[in-house]
């Protein structure tokens, strides 16, 4: 009997994760955060919180607030540094801010390109009760505009909308899967560089002019739907800051090589659709100090009428060229997203030897060799 009571008490401890020291009405649950660098050097911190359901009129911007019709409040404040900006925001909001429900941290491209980027990520993850599984989004343009533009177009809750939307795009491979905790761990500390989600607000309604309609970044997608705040593509990091961006197509190809996604649909030069399946993640190897080799095993299902299958050798050469171009782009951005560094470090016994090797310099100059083994099947 006593043992049963103890077991019951222990099981009840599992329910404590839902306990909070204050009521829901006594605090503001932050769903999304944004950070911008202003032209005068100041820092703007934006938070999106559930507001009143009746909505309301827009208030003047500045250290202010705005309501949107879906019942969310966007609050922002501008200061000199992150800490004093946060203090100013806390001083001007009517309730304390609770960061345990943050699903998205949006940082503008300008701010993410600064040397203090990794320190900023650590400051964000150190916020009290911060939800470190939040996605990190690098935004082309203003993070404030992106956060303001975000609304739950499907469903009612913004948090759920962001969560499911990101999961959908991650499964398709168009964005990487990176949380704040992972970004903090790997930016500047790890042997591999993380890719961060690229976001943008679509402005232009014109159709994409590129031959490959997937080969664009988030802000270049046509604004042909109510949802103008888009996630598409990736931001590459070089161990210190964001060094450049990748289009959705390039991101999907990298995810296919990493094994994060299983398939990718693309169109060949003749305009025929191809579905690529990765049998396994690409096998990486490092040849001496001067070459990086990828062995990729792909299955291709071609949607052609019978008798018009593409030439396998030409298709293989096309895919090798595409993959090599993406790797070279990563090299030019000094971003080791595939993990060649994780492979190279295994050759060394101590950290001192590894540091003396100067891997990043060698990585950017190495020759890339891609070998694709392709199995072609008709649909």
């Amino acid at each position, binding site marked *: 009997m006593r043992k049963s009571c103890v077991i019951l008490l222990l099981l009840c401890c599992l329910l404590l994760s839902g306990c909070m020291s204050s009521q829901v009405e006594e605090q503001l649950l932050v769903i999304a955060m944004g950070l911008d660098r202003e032209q005068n050097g100041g820092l703007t911190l934006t938070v999106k919180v559930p507001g009143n359901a009746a909505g309301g009129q827009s208030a003047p911007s500045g250290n202010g607030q705005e309501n949107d019709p879906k019942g969310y409040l966007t609050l922002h404040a501008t200061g000199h540094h992150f800490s004093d900006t946060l203090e100013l925001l806390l001083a001007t909001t009517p309730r304390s801010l609770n960061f345990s429900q943050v699903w998205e941290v949006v940082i503008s491209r300008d701010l993410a390109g600064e040397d203090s980027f990794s320190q900023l990520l650590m400051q964000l993850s150190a916020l009290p009760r911060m939800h470190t599984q939040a996605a990190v989004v690098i935004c082309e343009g203003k993070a404030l505009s992106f956060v303001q533009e975000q609304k739950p177009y499907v469903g009612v809750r913004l948090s759920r909308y962001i969560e499911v939307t990101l999961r959908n795009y991650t499964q398709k491979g168009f964005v990487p899967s990176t949380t704040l905790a992972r970004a903090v761990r790997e930016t500047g500390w790890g042997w591999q560089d993380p890719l961060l989600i690229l976001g943008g607000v679509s402005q232009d309604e014109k159709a994409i002019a590129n031959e490959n309609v997937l080969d664009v970044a988030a802000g270049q997608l046509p604004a042909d739907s109510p949802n103008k705040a888009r996630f598409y593509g990736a931001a590459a990091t070089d161990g210190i800051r964001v060094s450049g961006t990748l289009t959705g197509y390039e991101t999907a190809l990298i995810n296919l090589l990493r094994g994060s996604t299983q398939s990718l649909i693309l169109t060949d030069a003749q305009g025929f659709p191809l579905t690529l399946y990765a049998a396994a993640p690409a096998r990486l190897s490092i040849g001496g100090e001067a070459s990086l080799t990828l062995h990729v095993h792909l299955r291709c299902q071609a949607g052609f009428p019978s008798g018009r299958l593409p030439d396998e050798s030409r298709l293989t050469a096309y895919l090798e060229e595409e993959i090599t171009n993406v790797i070279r782009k990563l090299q030019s951005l000094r971003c080791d997203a595939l993990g060649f560094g994780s492979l190279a*470090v295994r050759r060394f016994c101590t*950290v001192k030897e*590894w540091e003396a090797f100067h891997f990043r310099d060698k990585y950017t100059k190495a020759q890339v060799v891609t070998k694709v083994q392709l199995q072609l099947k008709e649909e």
Partner: protein
Amino acid sequence: MNSLHQTKTSVHTEKARENQRQAAQMKGWVALSSLHLYAQLLCGLCFFLYRYVSTPSYLSLLLLLLPLTAVYYACCRISLKPLLWHSFPGKCAGIAFIFCLYADAFTALAGLSGMVQELLPDYNSLLMTIAIVLCVLPLLKRRQQNALQNLALLLCIPLFLALLFVLPGSIPQGSGGNLFPLLGQGGGRILWGSLWMCGCLSPALFPLLAHPPEKNGLLARNGCLHLIAALFFAFVTALMAAYLMPFYFLARPESPGARFMLFLDTNTSLLAWSLTVCGMMLLLLVSLCCAIEESSILLWRITKKQLHPLALLPLLSLSLMPSPIVEEVICFLFPLRALLMGVGLILLSIGGKRI
């Protein structure tokens, strides 16, 4: 809970009943000491080893196998001597062990306070430390003998469950490359870290405190196997940390409370979070209680006096110190504990009467 006055099976002789009671008692002691050892090793990892050795910490723990078995078997042999604590060397050894166990209690309390402060940053640290110390007070006036030992068997369950839930969610977030370079900052650091961690081996002293196993080799071997299992558990914990965290990240300055909850950033499961936090807090509380209980038993053996509640006051000094100083004090205590253990074992080996 099983009472030592009630046997599970039918017995026909007084000797058989006594043997069953002793076996049940030893089982409780073994479970409690294994939990105590794992808790102290975890504290050692978070307060010292991650910062000093970083990813090869698991190698430092592996090197503890030999000293652990040596201490345990030395205690088993010494415990066979009758009137162990009545001689002057025995009393001096007892005092040395009490200081060692107090250092264990201080370490466990520091870990627990650090975790609670990390979870509840808005609350006063002094009040929280007092609340934790108050949990230990009922031990000093306990009615049922070996209550803590009996509880230890039950508390192993949340810990294993926590590991089962945490591992599947966390493993995809890690990388095999994080385990390299294998030697980190060199073999010297790994060895030095291992020597430092010898201060965590005081749970292996339990054969001196439990009733002597009466030359029962099976009991002695089982006890050692359980301690080795606890060491292996700590090894797996350190290996997981190395797999999930890159070298520089694990070595960076961080509060010990945050280090105890390192794995939580790699797992999105709320159940895993709950189990891990509850399991670790219970573990550290059991370690704290075990250290106080063993101090109390030792004090009784050498002076025939009970441990006074005021003796817990020095532990409260923890809440008056800033966290960096607490960390430095704990790191200083590690080699001191190993030294006290060594001195105590030498004194005991020359004290008492030989059979």
